[in-house]
């Protein structure tokens, strides 16, 4: 009887061919960054014993008198005009509590929800009672949510992408990525979130999910073209081989 045996091989690290910028100052918590006075403390630093000390591991960024240390992986810190994808955890009186991979849950106010038909009016108590019609706990929506670290998502002008393979992707700045089948028509009034699923679109969605997981495993940045190239490289391998680590590495290096 013939059985297939695969022996694991230690993974090779890429760093040899990549440039290393020796100008960058890498600090760990407890390291003194500087003893200058008149320094403004940014994130990742604190003042102790008249010295500026780092509190996270990362590279020092200095802009005139402002010193901050940015960690490689943190929870999401919101910035103005960011697009985020969130998950509703609680329904409260005039608002929803949304989980967005940040240090506290975000709040989505009833007054900021778009009313059907684009009406502009003050939200009344009937709207409050009807809010469960918009979003209910356990609503089933077609699509897949992938959670990655926020530092891996590249900041882009628009995070909504319609990929030619028939799926759409929203790359939230908070690291949540929503993959869903591209809706055939766009209707303004449609509040019906349940759509019919075809097997092909399911396949496309799960393949995209795998692509994201691979890019994540190799710690590459996520943006629409990286995802697309990865997906194309993906299609050239038979499905049952996909989950093997060597194939994963091959696909990512092709990307």
């Amino acid at each position, binding site marked *: 009887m013939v059985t297939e045996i695969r022996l694991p091989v230690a993974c090779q*690290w*890429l*760093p040899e061919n*990549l440039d*290393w910028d020796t100008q960058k100052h*890498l600090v*760990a*918590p*407890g*390291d*003194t960054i500087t003893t200058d006075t008149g320094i403004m403390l940014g994130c*990742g630093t*604190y003042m*102790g*014993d008249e010295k500026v*000390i780092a*509190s*996270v*591991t*990362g*590279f020092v960024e200095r802009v005139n008198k402002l010193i901050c240390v940015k*960690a*490689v*992986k*943190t*929870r999401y810190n919101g910035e103005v005009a960011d697009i985020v994808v969130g998950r509703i*955890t609680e329904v409260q009186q005039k608002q929803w*509590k949304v*989980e967005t991979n940040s*240090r*506290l*849950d975000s709040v989505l106010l009833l007054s900021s929800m778009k009313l059907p038909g684009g009406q502009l009016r003050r939200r009344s108590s009937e709207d409050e009672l009807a809010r469960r019609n918009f979003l209910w706990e356990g609503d089933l929506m077609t699509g897949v949510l992938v959670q990655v670290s926020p*530092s*891996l998502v590249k900041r882009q002008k628009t995070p909504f992408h319609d990929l030619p393979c028939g799926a759409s992707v929203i790359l939230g700045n908070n690291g949540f990525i929503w993959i869903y089948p591209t809706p055939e028509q766009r209707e303004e009034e449609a509040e019906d979130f349940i759509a019919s699923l075809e097997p092909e679109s399911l396949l496309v969605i799960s393949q995209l999910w795998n692509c994201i997981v691979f890019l*994540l*495993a*190799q*710690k*590459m*940045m996520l943006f629409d073209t990286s995802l697309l190239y990865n997906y194309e490289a993906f299609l050239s391998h038979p499905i049952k081989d996909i989950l093997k680590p060597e194939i994963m590495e091959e696909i990512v290096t092709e990307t």
Partner: protein
Amino acid sequence: MAGLELLSDQGYRVDGRRAGELRKIQARMGVFAQADGSAYIEQGNTKALAVVYGPHEMRGSRSRALPDRALVNCQYSMATFSTGERKRRPHGDRKACEMGLQLRQTFEAAILTQLYPRSQIDIYVQVLQADGGNYAACVNAATLAVLDAGIPMRDFVCACSAGFVDGTALADLSHVEEAAGGPQVALALLPASGQLALLEMDARLHEDHLQQVLEAASQAARDVHALLDRVVRQHVREAALLLGD
């Protein structure tokens, strides 16, 4: 065990180490992708795994949320296969609760909790193989995991155990040395400032010897720091290179 010589005439311990020598330490960060931070450490034969989630919204009772700082929640557990005899340990075990409390005190001293009011930071530590120095391995693993999660800390927290035999202080006790019943000191240190986060002692020790034992433990903790520092820098460098910063 009668007749077991913890320290020979030539100054060698049971496993061949010198009095102040540490066991071999190997550590890795970022072992779990799902958690915010994770780390694995091996100190000799003691293996510990730490996982950190947070800071995030308070789960469970909102009333426990602190208005000016984050709540640090630590849980310690030992795997059933971690000791010589397979033993099932229930979750609310006294020993586990006590260890959890000690870990919490240690990390509340080190993490800058004022930056995250009303949130919660969860630290889960599990010992996969216990060969002495459980607390120390857990603290070291948890430090790496907290750093991996990007949570700001005052400094590294490095821990080591120490004992006293025949007038000599021994650093980093193994299970055999702990079971022999001599005094044991567990110490958690913030290396840059030299401040102690936690100091615990079992059994009796004459106060004349205390200074010597504390110095041995502090020195050992500093040696651990040198190692953890190297691991952390290497990890961040690799991550930064791959991200193309």
